[in-house]
């Protein structure tokens, strides 16, 4: 599979993002800037993709795997979790419910009122 040119292009955009962050001392992470740069390129070159599409699909299909190593980092703070697990757990759970509900309800209202004629619904989950 033609995976080398694709991954190289992704890395070049990431490198560009990281370089911008260092040069201009921006408080955002390099990959996020790299993504915005790639998006801008796609818009300007009207769907240019080179050999990117297959690589992007492969890498995004297994996106959740990539978070596992960082998650294991909790092992460094076992003591703190032992002492404060109830406060931490409750806070994480309730605040995530609040954030999900508030954002989803607001956006649902907006989308319904704007696209009421188009019918966006796809019931899955």
């Amino acid at each position, binding site marked *: 599979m033609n995976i080398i040119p694709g*991954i190289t292009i*992704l*890395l070049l955009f*990431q490198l560009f993002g990281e370089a911008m962050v260092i040069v201009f001392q921006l*408080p*955002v*992470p*390099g*990959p*996020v800037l*790299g*993504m*915005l740069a*790639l*998006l801008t390129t796609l818009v300007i070159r009207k769907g240019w993709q080179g050999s*990117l*599409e297959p690589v*992007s*699909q492969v890498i*995004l299909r297994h*996106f*959740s*795997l*990539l*978070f*596992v*190593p*960082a*998650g*294991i*980092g909790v*092992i*460094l*703070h076992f003591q703190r979790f032992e002492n*404060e697990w*109830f*406060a*931490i757990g*409750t*806070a*994480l759970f*309730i*605040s995530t419910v609040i*954030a*999900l*509900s508030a*954002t*989803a309800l*607001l*956006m*649902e209202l*907006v*989308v319904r009122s*704007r696209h009421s004629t188009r019918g*966006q*619904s*796809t*019931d*899955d*989950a």
Partner: protein
Amino acid sequence: MTPETLYEAWVYLAASPLLGLTTTLVVYIVCNWLYQRSGQWPGLNPVMASIIVLVTLLKTTDTSYETYFEGAQFIHFLLGPATVALAFPLYRQLPKLKGLWGFILGGILLGGLGSALSGIWIAELLGASGTTLLSLAPKSVTTPVGMGIAEKIGGLPSLTAGLVVLTGVIGAVIGPSLFRLLRIRSDIAKGIAMGTASHGIGTARALQLSEEMGAFSGLAMALSALITTFTLPVVLQYLSYY
């Protein structure tokens, strides 16, 4: 083969990056297989299950996180190019964004600050320490950004990394059921909420449900990283948390 040679082999392999990398992949593949076999039952979320299994393995074999990360860093590294790759699904959904920009920014600001402040207040109410509170604040943004913010406001970056992943898992697990309960129909609304509340792990879950939801979740994740970086430290300073 004597027990000594076996032990020597173990000592040698335990210190090499190969073991940490391979173990992570094998555990994830098995967890993901079980998850698919269960009909994607949320209780078997593969990220959560993998973390529990691997933490147990590291604890029982007395392996340090540093040794493990020697191998796992190769997976961790791919977070960068994967984030860049999110530009793709986003590009394909771009026409649907017309006229929605202002609302999307408002929704992300509401969800991002709501998540941070409610998290801090609840933890404070339940008696968590000051360091925990500050490490908890940036939990809804993607791992590297969250760690950067934690460092700036006086939290512990490595603790934040763990809390960020836990938040992502919680959102990925309860998101779909919560949306059904609240009768959210639009994939745009679901996606923006997933990306705002639970960053990349929420986005990974959203991508499995529909490309549209995944694309908007990726967008919300990127925008919320930008917005939170600039607003959260200011708000916390105003409320004199640091």
